[in-house]
């Protein structure tokens, strides 16, 4: 028996009569990683959800302080591993902004195409995993079939399937693969012909609709006050697409719509992501034939040194807004680095969304938040 002290307190308060505290996770098939939710239940109704974090904390921010500006980019692939390319892009953009490095047009185009492919791959994985959470197993395979084509493209061009590390400050690590354009076009045709299958299997399915419609409602005011970004906020009617509001690279040259739904429930979040995949295809179609010839990497100094000061950039990952903040003392390594990860803010709204609903609805709410735990913990 451990003696109760100031530090070790007995926190297993059972609350009122009839309340039950259930630990969901840290090892649970539906949490997609080591997320620990302490769920207070009254019968089947959720009274409170308390996420406990820190199971996969690797102190990436501290680690980056000891790495040079060329080296720290690869670590950010390990934060949100499903949109690792966009994470790398955010860090590279900050260094380029701080040191006024000119990036060739070719590199900008390829960066955007690969970012959108990453976004589609991430949403495909989410679609499969989310349908599996709700008990449909088949969509997982169909979604992974299209995702496999993207990972093949990534493997050809970047040399890795998940943690690409293809972006260096000033451009790209090496030029695109000769087959890149051909393979991306093949993917677009495949995706367009198969996207109707998702509608048949998931979107129009009565069971799926009744499990997600009206479940986990988040109003626009709450989405803003909790700091939600990405598809979660856009499903509540908040316009927050960084690609539209603060365009980086060539997003100001391409035409695409910011997908906004107003219902704010789980089904709206689902629809936003499915429609976003089609918008990503639209962006890729506009760029893939127009990749300009030229260098793939700009001229940079051998040793990168950010000038003294504070720098901030943001990019739109598949989950929302990723902010990179660096305080530089003028040396070769960052003095302090902070990542504003989208998953952390989105998770904080979970208690508000799920409180009062039934425990079965928690799966739908949590699934549509699209949580990646290493992104939350870092």
């Amino acid at each position, binding site marked *: 028996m451990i003696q109760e002290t100031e530090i070790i307190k007995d926190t297993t308060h059972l609350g009122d009569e009839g309340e039950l505290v259930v630990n969901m996770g840290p090892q649970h098939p539906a949490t997609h990683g080591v997320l620990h939710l302490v769920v207070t239940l009254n019968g089947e109704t959720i009274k409170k959800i308390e996420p406990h974090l820190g199971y996969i904390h690797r102190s990436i921010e501290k680690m980056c302080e000891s790495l040079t500006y060329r080296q720290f980019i690869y670590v950010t692939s390990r934060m949100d591993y499903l949109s690792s390319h966009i994470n790398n892009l955010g860090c590279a953009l900050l260094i380029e902004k701080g040191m006024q490095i000119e990036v060739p047009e070719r590199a900008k185009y390829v960066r955007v195409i690969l970012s959108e492919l990453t976004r589609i791959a991430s949403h495909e994985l989410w679609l499969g995993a989310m349908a599996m959470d709700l008990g449909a197993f088949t969509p997982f395979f169909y979604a992974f079939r299209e995702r496999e084509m993207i990972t093949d493209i990534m493997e050809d061009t970047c040399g890795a399937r998940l943690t690409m*590390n293809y972006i260096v400050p000033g451009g790209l690590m090496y030029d695109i693969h000769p087959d890149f354009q051909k393979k991306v076009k093949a993917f677009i045709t495949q995706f367009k012909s198969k996207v109707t299958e998702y509608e048949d299997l998931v979107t129009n399915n009565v069971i799926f609709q009744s499990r997600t419609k009206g479940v986990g409602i988040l109003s626009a005011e709450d989405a803003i006050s909790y700091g939600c970004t990405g598809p979660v906020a856009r499903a509540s009617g908040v316009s927050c697409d960084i690609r539209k509001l603060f365009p980086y690279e060539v997003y100001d040259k391409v035409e695409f719509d910011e997908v906004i739904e107003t219902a704010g429930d789980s089904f709206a979040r689902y629809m936003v992501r499915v429609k976003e995949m089609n918008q990503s295809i639209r962006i890729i179609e506009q760029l893939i034939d127009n990749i300009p010839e030229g260098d793939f990497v700009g001229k940079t100094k051998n040793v990168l040194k950010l000038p003294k000061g504070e720098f901030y950039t943001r990019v739109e990952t598949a989950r929302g807004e990723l902010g990179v903040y660096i305080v530089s003392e003028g040396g070769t390594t960052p003095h302090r680095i902070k990542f504003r990860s989208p998953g952390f803010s989105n998770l904080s709204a979970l208690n508000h969304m799920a409180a009062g609903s039934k425990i079965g609805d928690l799966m739908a709410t949590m699934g549509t938040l699209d949580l990646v735990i290493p992104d939350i913990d870092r």
Partner: protein
Amino acid sequence: MFIKDYISDVYNGVTSLLKGMRKTGWYFVHPKEIITEQYPDNRATLKLADRFKGEVVMPHDENNEHTCTGCTACELACPNGTIKVVTKFETTPEGKKKKAIDALVYRLELCTMCNLCVAACPSDAIKMAPTFEHSVFDRTKLTKILNQPGSKIKEGIE
């Protein structure tokens, strides 16, 4: 009204179920659409992308010569100390002392395949190989010395 809703609910449920089942059934009778790879049975035909980052290797030519000058650029570029360059001084026939590598120690268990060492190398002495089956029974076997025994630097590389 209640009966009407109930019947339409049942009808919609059954049709959406049948729609999904039709898709599954279509794939059931179209085995050519299956894209599953039968690894490890397809080892003989399995070909990974040329650029796939599996491990760092040092290419040697037929005379057992490499192009590594021992400049330690890869060691400095590595984010987590995977590469260690041990240098020695060789005496050339003219009596001059020349720096050369004794061993390029590469620890595969630490490597994150970030490709920064290959990008930093000024003489293209190391490259990434598309191998991926790295499992061994003993951890110490993952620490490799990349330059082959008896190898020396190619003529004309400074």
